[in-house]
């Protein structure tokens, strides 16, 4: 076996040490990792640019839609207000008390031998109608004529309105006589108090108030 003499041992040792220099190796590793990070950063930057483009598209679409939706919202608010107001006004219209038919029904009850001197009627917030009738009845039995009128009023009004009440407030004989059909008959003065319910009053949130009759 041949004998080898390494006369450059120290130089080789130094060269190996230079090659294994931790700082050099660290810098190489750092550079490699830095390059990878840079590539990843570029890739991420590209993705962000894509997202930015998507955002631009979305903003352009919104800019196109926004005026339309703003105007649509305003219009919808106006329409809702109109619908609501119309509904409330219609409720009020349907719930009001028609006096034309009431006066007509009272007139139909008045026989030729009675006369109404005064009529005071009013309707309250709950659509309850109160009427005071003052009049004169004439006949052989004037009180009975007045009672006939009371019953007729009760019957006629009861056909159309609930909770009808017709009561005498007073009924008194008069000294005066009137001529009916050529003969003089005694008279009586009556005060009648009439009350009834004329429908459901309108309320702001009433869905649909029952419709009352229309005046003839």
């Amino acid at each position: 076996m041949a004998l080898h003499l390494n006369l450059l041992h120290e130089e080789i040792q130094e060269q190996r040490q230079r090659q294994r220099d931790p700082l050099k190796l660290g810098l190489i590793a750092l550079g490699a990792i830095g390059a990878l990070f840079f590539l990843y950063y570029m890739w991420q930057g590209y993705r962000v640019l894509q997202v930015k483009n998507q955002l631009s598209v979305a903003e352009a679409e919104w800019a196109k839609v926004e005026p339309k939706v703003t105007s649509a919202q305003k219009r919808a608010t106006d329409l809702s207000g109109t619908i609501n107001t119309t509904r409330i006004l219609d409720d009020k219209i349907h719930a009001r008390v028609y006096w034309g038919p009431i006066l007509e029904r009272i007139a139909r009850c008045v026989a030729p031998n009675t006369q109404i001197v005064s009529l005071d009627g009013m309707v309250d917030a709950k659509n309850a109608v109160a009427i005071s009738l003052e009049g004169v009845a004439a006949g052989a039995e004037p009180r009975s004529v007045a009672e006939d009128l009371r019953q007729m009023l009760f019957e006629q009004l009861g056909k159309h309105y609930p909770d009808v009440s017709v009561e005498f407030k007073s009924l008194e004989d008069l000294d005066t006589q009137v001529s009916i059909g050529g003969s003089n008959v005694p008279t009586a003065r009556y005060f009648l108090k009439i009350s009834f319910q004329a429908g459901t009053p309108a309320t702001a949130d009433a869905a649909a108030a029952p419709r009352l009759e229309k005046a003839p």
Partner: protein
Amino acid sequence: MKKIDLSKDQLQKVILSLLGFAALIYVYFTFFLGPLDRSAASMKASINDLQTKVAASKSEITKEAQLEREAGSATARFAELRSHTPEGAPIAWFPPRMRTFFASHEIDKATARLESSEDYKNPALEKWTRYHWSIELPGAGYNELGKAIADLENAEPLFAVSEVKIHTLPDDPRNQVVDLRVTTTLAKR
């Protein structure tokens, strides 16, 4: 396991390399990747927000179109109700209108007086006002009066009679003195 023998100089260099690596990591994530990710996340959130708004607005526009179709009759009805209020102050046009109306029903000398007016508390009726009027008819036949009131109630939907007082004239039993209290709902002009 092979033991790595490092000289003091080499150990310092290893530590320096590690410090450099840590600094690189910190700078990269804090000043480069972090802001980029935050920016992307913020933009994605904005896109989602805009897409939600666009989707919602499309449904809003559809609803408005639907409402427009449904509101056709209500809008016409509303316009019709508003048309019952002429331009100008009610005190200027209502009394002459009543005088003319009752005159056309053979009831002369009708006078109408404004008693009070009030705004509705309901916000839906904020553009409407309630007026209370007193109408005096010094000489009216009962039948003519009934017909006139019925016609008025039919012609004026926002007109409501709240009180009726009819008294016969002692000298003229065929004619009555009539006092009406009426309420009208009128649009604010």
